[in-house]
């Protein structure tokens, strides 16, 4: 019974696959599965970073805005270049440089969050809520509210190739899915097998005890927010690349989908419990559910109701599992 509870997200995933496989005739074709995979990938990048943050009992509400900001940064660099006003000079970085600069921007926003949470003792919810507005505002300021419409690049400027992130393939598999697999494997390894990963769990499980045990709390927290910022920057790049355009409003409410995936995957908002694998499964449940419902022609209004219900059901099951485990712990104590 407990095993069934523990595997509930996997069971839910199999159930949604089976359901749409039967009801939506074209659902279980390679083509449509790859599309679903690409949709899931965007949310999964964010959810992986979010998982690390939530494991420390934090939250990162700013990731959706970082997606928007980083899309604009990359779009601006490719489309308009880097203008150095005093010299009346405009530099066009190549695609690799653009990607690196964008990732650094995302990471710096994460560091900002981490410093707010640790050194300035702002509650994670508030700190990242503030960053949510700041980063979104920055994206609008940089682009003046406009879209950068053409990210294909120009051969004469040497900055072509950006669309590969969103629409390129490796051996027939979309790059974004390959990146997801690599990302997930790396993150799962870091979480389960490195001292850093173990300490992330410890900070969320009992911060005071972790401190007394010699865990450098502030360092761990700054790193997890930085990871989250990096993941969001990467998601921003992929989103902009897929559309071959970047819009400052891109990524709105993405943070909620990321939190939903992590929670659905068994990550406890209280910290200390959860896994990258669970989060990936959670992201797939959400992604398959939304795409499947679209294919069935369910109205988008109903889709929202269904998605919300699934999230609540997941948390209720989580509580039930917690109760079962506590009961078993109690037994063990008495025995």
């Amino acid at each position, binding site marked *: 019974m407990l095993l069934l509870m523990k595997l509930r997200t996997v069971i839910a995933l199999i159930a949604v696959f089976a359901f749409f496989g039967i009801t939506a005739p074209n659902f279980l074709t390679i083509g449509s599965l790859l599309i679903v995979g690409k949709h899931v990938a965007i949310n999964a990048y964010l959810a992986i970073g979010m998982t690390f943050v939530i494991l420390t009992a934090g939250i990162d509400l700013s990731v959706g805005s970082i997606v928007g900001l980083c899309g604009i940064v990359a779009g601006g660099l490719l489309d308009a270049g880097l203008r150095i006003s005093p010299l009346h000079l405009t530099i066009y970085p190549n695609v690799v440089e653009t990607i690196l600069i964008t990732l650094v921007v995302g990471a710096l926003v994460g560091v900002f969050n981490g410093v707010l949470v640790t050194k300035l003792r702002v509650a994670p919810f508030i700190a990242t809520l503030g960053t949510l507005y700041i980063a979104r505002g920055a994206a609008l300021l940089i682009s003046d509210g406009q879209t950068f419409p053409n990210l294909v690049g120009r051969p004469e400027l040497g900055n072509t190739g950006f669309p590969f992130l969103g629409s390129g393939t490796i051996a027939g598999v979309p790059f974004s899915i390959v990146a997801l697999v690599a990302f997930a494997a790396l993150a799962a390894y870091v979480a389960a097998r490195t001292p850093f990963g173990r300490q992330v769990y410890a900070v969320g499980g009992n911060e005071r005890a972790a401190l007394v045990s010699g865990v450098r709390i502030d360092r761990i927290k700054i790193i997890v927010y930085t990871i989250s910022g990096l993941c969001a920057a990467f998601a921003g790049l992929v989103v902009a690349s897929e559309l071959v355009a970047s819009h400052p409003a891109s990524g709105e409410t993405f943070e909620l989908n990321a939190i939903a995936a992590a929670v659905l995957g068994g990550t406890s908002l209280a910290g200390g419990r959860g896994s990258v694998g669970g989060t990936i499964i959670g992201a797939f449940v959400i992604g398959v559910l939304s795409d499947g419902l679209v294919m069935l022609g369910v109205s988008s209004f109903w889709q929202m109701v269904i998605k919300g219900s699934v999230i609540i059901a997941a948390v209720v099951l989580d509580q039930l599992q917690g109760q079962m485990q506590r009961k078993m712990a109690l037994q063990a104590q*008495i025995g």
Partner: protein
Amino acid sequence: MNPSTDHPVVLAAVDVSKVFPGTVALDKASFEVRSGAVNVLVGENGAGKSTLMKILAGVEQPTSGQLLLDGKPIRFPTPRDAAGHGIGIIYQELNLCPNLSVAENIFIGAPLLRYRIDIDGRRQAERAAELMRRLEQAIDPQTLVGDLRIGQQQIVEIAKALAEDVRILIMDEPTSALSSVEVEILFRVIRELKAAGVAIIYISHRLDEIMVIGDYITVMRDGRVQARAAVADISIPWIVGQMVGAMAAVAAAPDSHADAPPVLVAENIALASAKGGFTVDHVSLTVRAGEVVGIYGLMGAGRSELFECLMGLQPDATGSLMLAGKSLDGQSTAQRIKNGLAMVPEDRQSAGLIGPLSVAQNLTLSSLWRFVRRFALDMPREKKAVHDIIGSLNIKVSTPDVEITALSGGNQQKVVIGKSLLTEPKAILLDEPGRGIDVGAKAEVFRTMRRLGEAGLAVVFATSDLHEVMAVADRIVVMASGTITADFPRAAATEDALVLASHPRTAAAAGGS
């Protein structure tokens, strides 16, 4: 004294069993609660005391058997029903809201109302102040509970139970965080309650206390009632014998280490108090290799704070600390641990254990750097270290992968100690290492401490238990009001001298060698 006429049975559990899937927590246990008397319940952790109390308080339902109140069968489906029949309980774990004031906490269950609408804060404060006077505490009812020391919080917990008129009062280890003065006050209150006809159920691991305050004693072992007696007819060795079946004690002669090299040298450690003055008042302490030093003192003497200063957990601490000839000044807690200093904190739940992690993950948390190969953890090596320490500390656990919360208090404490030992420390600080664990586990913990001393570590432990410090330490240091008031080799220490030195007012006159 004739039990049946002087102290009639008010509440009885008859052949009560409690079965959890897979385990029998209580096996046909019968327990009589006599009014106007202190009914003591003892047993090792996991013997079934807490389950029995939870059944009496309506928190758990018995699987079979029944409860009799005034001779009539009764059921308590919820804690409210039990409370409605005048049964109060003081839990071992504090159930207070740190964000509310003392008065608000005391009346949280049944607030005093004005016109049955809003809370009458003034009347609550007055009643709370009355209770504090009765308990001889200078605690302002408006103080936030979170600002109180643990001992004072326990007093508030006791006041909470006294605020309601109880016929039967269950006290689960009420003295575990109290100083000897506070214990005396509690005992006086207990005697008053007894005289008023209240039945007290008293659970404690401190056997000497039981001999002082108890009237009837019931010993539990493995979910069954092992023995019953009037306290007047028995002795401490009898109780221990009934509890564990055999005497468990630390038999060790104190050693002199005057020639050994100093390992831990603390000089002028000071920590200013928010209320003015010093919580730790320029303390200097040298501990030599192989020495086991006991710091005896009351709650609030500054023992825990001294340890926190040494571990780098108090950013405002001043003074200097050398460990094995190397200065640790200005280092973070993490660096100090790496350099060979370890601490077992006082409060196991809040500062010792990481709830969601497994026993194995808790054990290696402080020493992960020892198991790193390139970037990752060397899992087989980690597993082996966990296996070895579980064996050498005799931690009772089915597999190291179970969550730490599944273990009994004594085994949890061994895990916290194991965590510090895996860092391969040169000096180890243990804050109240015997608190809240049963006699058997306590003896094992103290034997481990002696063994560490023999292995050449500098061992320092803080305690408010005279017998502990007299039984385990080579040298006894007494603290009061943040300063060291006496320093004896164990052979020269007497209980009287220690007690005298531990009281802030008398300490100046006591001194030591």
